[in-house]
């Protein structure tokens, strides 16, 4: 692998950029691998990378039906934070956060992880109780988190309306300084390039059409490019997980919903942090390119159409203009929808399945992007050792039968 650096860039410039290498190969599928990862999004590529890097399992195929990183990796609002309420979720996301903090250097690919802080606003007394509960829990879990007063909030976000005469005045906020945003596409590309360099085959335009299962154990997959064998198969297919599970003969407690987002036209820097409000339903940050990236709520119905309902967008922008009246004359450039696979408790599934050797990593709901390195890291461990990583253990499918949910819907009330 060519190492990327400023010096290297200059060298290539002098040769008119004619000598850049491919960032990843376009290999022909082998008949057999040690591990097959189904799904070439951020999580799948990260899983492959950590399998190769940390567990020495390099004979790995990542099978992707479209283009790598083309699912929710390409369609999210790029927020990275770890200030989750419950211990189990907080531990998993904080594990991820620590990986984010060295990711660009580890991958030798600048994923532009910008630790500009994430603020979750509170507009009601109950919001404030929830903020305090979460911040206290975060601190005892070793996660940086503080409660801000309206005055402190105004100082960090001078352009927000923090006045008392708003419909739902801002009473306070939680604030995680280490949280921030990253360049979503670069995360997929960085993992792909690094995994490829370690020998992982990334098979794009390769669609899994079924599993090879015998005696309750998986030994490969059928694809549109022929059968591929492996004794361990990890599915990391987000919104399509339910469809894959059906192929393998079982159901998952998942529903796939549209989640919409939108961007404004590019503007000069005006917002230096990430602001989220669950109460008025909107969240916003500004990219390095200058676009305001705005997230909307999940649409209530199931949908794979990468479209959602227009009123959701209206309500979101109403919330944004309520918080930022100065953005009323700014213009919305583009809107789109992702497909989020959500579990009843708003937490993921990282689990063995009724089929031996077949594992699923899914159900990340709105938390998928921020979990990318952690999810891959923990799932790689699980696949390599054929047993749940301690951080993954609470997220087994069993919990929906025992009742041991990790209910992030509850007091946390914080999605995205």
């Amino acid at each position, binding site marked *: 692998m060519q190492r990327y650096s400023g010096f290297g860039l200059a060298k290539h410039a002098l040769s008119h950029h004619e000598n850049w290498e491919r960032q990843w190969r376009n290999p022909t599928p082998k008949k057999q691998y040690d591990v097959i990862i189904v799904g070439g999004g951020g999580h799948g590529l990260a899983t492959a990378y950590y399998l190769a890097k940390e567990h020495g399992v390099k004979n790995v195929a990542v099978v992707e039906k479209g283009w790598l990183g083309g699912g929710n990796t390409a369609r999210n609002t790029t927020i990275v934070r770890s200030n989750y309420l419950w211990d189990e979720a907080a531990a998993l996301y904080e594990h991820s956060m620590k990986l984010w903090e060295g990711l660009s250097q580890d991958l030798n690919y600048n994923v532009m992880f910008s630790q500009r802080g994430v603020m979750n606003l509170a507009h009601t007394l109950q919001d404030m109780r929830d903020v305090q509960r979460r911040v206290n829990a975060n601190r005892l879990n070793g996660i940086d988190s503080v409660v801000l007063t309206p005055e402190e909030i105004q100082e960090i976000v001078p352009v927000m309306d923090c006045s008392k005469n708003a419909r739902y005045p801002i009473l306070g906020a939680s604030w995680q300084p280490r949280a921030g945003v990253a360049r979503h596409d670069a995360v997929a590309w960085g993992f792909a390039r690094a995994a490829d360099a370690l020998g992982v085959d990334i098979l794009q335009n390769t669609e899994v059409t079924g599993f090879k299962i015998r005696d309750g154990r998986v030994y490969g997959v059928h694809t549109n490019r022929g059968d591929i064998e492996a004794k361990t198969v990890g599915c990391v297919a987000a919104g399509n997980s339910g469809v894959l599970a059906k192929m393998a003969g079982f159901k998952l407690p998942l529903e796939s919903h549209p989640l919409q987002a939108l961007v404004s036209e590019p503007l000069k820097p005006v917002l230096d942090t990430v602001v989220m409000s669950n109460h008025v339903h909107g969240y916003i940050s500004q990219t390095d390119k200058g676009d305001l990236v705005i997230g909307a709520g999940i649409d209530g119905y199931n949908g794979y159409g990468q479209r959602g*309902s227009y009123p959701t967008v209206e309500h979101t922008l109403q919330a944004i203009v309520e918080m930022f009246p100065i953005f009323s004359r700014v213009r919305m450039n583009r809107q789109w929808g992702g497909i989020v696979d959500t579990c009843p408790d708003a937490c993921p599934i990282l689990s063995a399945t009724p089929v031996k050797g077949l594992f699923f990593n899914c159900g990340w709901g709105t938390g998928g992007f921020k979990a990318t390195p952690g999810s891959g890291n923990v799932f790689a461990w699980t696949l390599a050792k054929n047993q749940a990583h301690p951080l993954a253990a609470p997220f087994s499918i069993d919990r929906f039968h025992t009742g041991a949910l990790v209910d992030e819907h509850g007091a946390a009330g914080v999605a995205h």
Partner: protein
Amino acid sequence: MFLIYCPYCEEHREEEEFHPKGQAHIARPADPEACSDEEWGDYLFFRDNPRGIHHELWVHAVGCRKFFNITRNTVSYEILETYRMGEQPRFTAEYPEGKPAEKKSAAAKEVAQQEGVKA
């Protein structure tokens, strides 16, 4: 934004008047105490999540407040039919063009519905 035919109001209404309530035809086990934990968990949490034809429960929340079912394609978002509680869908994954045998009975039902109240 969907345009949804309410089978009780007997006209199309904007999606803003409705709430989706998850998968249709989820019957509560008749004897919950006799269910295993597995069966109870399945009833509570496990749903079909198809790419394609799906049967959903909706409520005409701002309107007649009746619950009813929608058969909808989850990719194209086309609504193939809406039908009242207690009725069965004509369009299914197995019969995406409609169950042939039931076309007649559906028509008969419509006549019955139209009789309604003698005003």
